[in-house]
């Protein structure tokens, strides 16, 4: 697709931020949703329309092998989900407690925890990663008698590394530690089975690998008692009662849902189900391996995780700032990436001295030819990266 007159054709490789394009059936479902009055039990009598929230909860439960569809809560995005869970968990505690997180985390985890630490609600230990992963041993070594919460990513948005979350979830469950898993980069990208990950809560975003619209996300909560609600309002149920309902899902949902967004999420899940999660995962791994293979061995390109499990590849070119590389790729080659710290500052402190890097990320709808074109472009930029800086 051409970006504009005289511009190179667009190659979009920023799918870890948000996926583009979306499958046609997602676009069709959103259009269909907007052509009839919205319906949700308790909020409308338009009974012939699709109850998107109810159908999406059932679809999510089947997709993630979850027992309770009503324990799926819709939010604006993963950041919204993480804030609700972290602040809701802390609100339930009667005394300050200890929490554990990791150097791999996004600011949607780090900032709420930092805010609570600054308020004196918790003390925080940040576990380092080794070879792009946080280990169970690292979590165990950080444990204190007053540890009550672990919040960690399932997949790094910078290093593309899939964390071995199952043993950590089993350990936390056995020790009565509430584990919140940030699945923003893994939901829809790799198989996720809640029967195998006994986490307290799993967070997903709707607009990345699940192919929904931006403004969608959610979480699954095993035991609603663990987390207090932090917002109250209209639920379409028990309207006479001024006490906000504690039944699921209304305990955590108030106000009019994002019906078109939820419709897009439902269509995205159905799309992945029809294509097959393994096929989606396999295609992305093929694109990632191919791209990394084209860059490996180039002495001017620094690859930060040549063994990425997820379709996320971060790199720098020697002698150039990452924002310069991103600018050249976008303007001269039409390749859309992301540069900078990717909202994950602690990872960058470790890998590039906090300066940031260029990130390329694929989806299962990315064109394999675009993958090769992008790799060639990066190599061309690297080949010309010897700057002339004239002395004053």
């Amino acid at each position, binding site marked *: 697709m051409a970006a504009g007159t005289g511009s190179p054709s667009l190659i979009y490789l920023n799918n870890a931020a948000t996926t583009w394009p979306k499958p046609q059936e997602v676009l069709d479902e959103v259009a269909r949703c907007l052509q009839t009055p919205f319906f949700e039990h308790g909020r409308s009598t338009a009974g012939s329309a699709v109850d998107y929230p109810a159908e999406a909860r059932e679809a999510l439960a089947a997709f993630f092998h979850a027992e309770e569809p009503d324990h799926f809560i819709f939010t604006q995005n993963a950041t919204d989900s993480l804030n609700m869970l972290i602040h809701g968990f802390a609100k339930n505690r009667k005394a300050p407690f200890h929490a554990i997180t990791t150097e791999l985390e996004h600011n949607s985890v780090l900032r709420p925890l930092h805010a609570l630490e600054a308020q004196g609600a918790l003390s925080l230990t940040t576990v380092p990663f080794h070879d792009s992963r946080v280990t169970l041993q690292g979590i165990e070594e950080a444990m204190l008698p007053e540890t009550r919460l672990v919040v960690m990513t399932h997949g790094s948005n910078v290093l593309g590394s899939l964390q071995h979350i199952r043993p950590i979830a089993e350990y936390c469950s056995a020790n009565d530690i509430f584990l919140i898993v940030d699945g923003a980069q893994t939901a829809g990208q790799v198989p996720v089975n809640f029967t195998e990950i006994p986490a307290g809560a799993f967070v997903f975003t709707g607009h990345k690998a699940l192919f929904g619209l931006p403004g969608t996300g959610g979480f699954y909560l095993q035991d609603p008692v663990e987390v207090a609600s932090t917002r109250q309002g209209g639920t379409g149920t028990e309207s006479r009662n001024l006490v906000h309902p504690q039944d699921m899902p209304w305990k955590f949902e108030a106000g009019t849902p994002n019906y078109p967004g939820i419709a897009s999420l439902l269509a995205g899940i159905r799309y992945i189900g029809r294509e097959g999660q393994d096929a989606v995962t396999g295609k992305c791994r093929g694109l990632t391996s191919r791209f990394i293979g084209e860059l490996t061995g180039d002495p001017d390109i620094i690859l930060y995780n040549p063994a990425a499990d997820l379709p996320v590849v971060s790199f720098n070119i020697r002698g*150039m*700032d990452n924002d*310069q590389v991103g*600018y*050249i790729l976008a*303007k*001269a080659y039409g390749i859309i990436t992301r540069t900078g710290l990717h909202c994950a500052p602690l990872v960058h402190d470790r890998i590039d001295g906090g300066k940031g890097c260029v990130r390329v990320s694929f989806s299962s709808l990315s064109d394999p030819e675009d993958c090769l074109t992008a790799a060639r472009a990066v190599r*061309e*930029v690297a*080949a*010309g*990266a*010897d*700057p*002339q*800086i*004239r002395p*004053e």
Partner: protein
Amino acid sequence: MKEYILSGPLTPAFLEFLRSFGTVKEYPHMKRPFFSFEQEDFISVKGFAGDTSVEVRYRKEFSDLTSDYFHLLLFYGSKGEGGIRKMHEIEESIREKMRIRRPR
């Protein structure tokens, strides 16, 4: 961040002028020769040789002090040594305001 469309490409003489205020890097061996200019706390400029558009970034905390800075560089860039002197005066005046604003 702003993208400026200029009446003509930035000249080698103008890049030479910019050297008086910060670091100019040129990458003539790129498929599209690229340049960047960085003046700490003030602005960074990047673009391709021969293009009439450039990207200019400002430090957010000082953007009200520096938002006209690129225009001033373009104006004084053709004034020779007098232009360099004047820009240094302007730079120092802005830096003084930055010093006042920075927490002690």
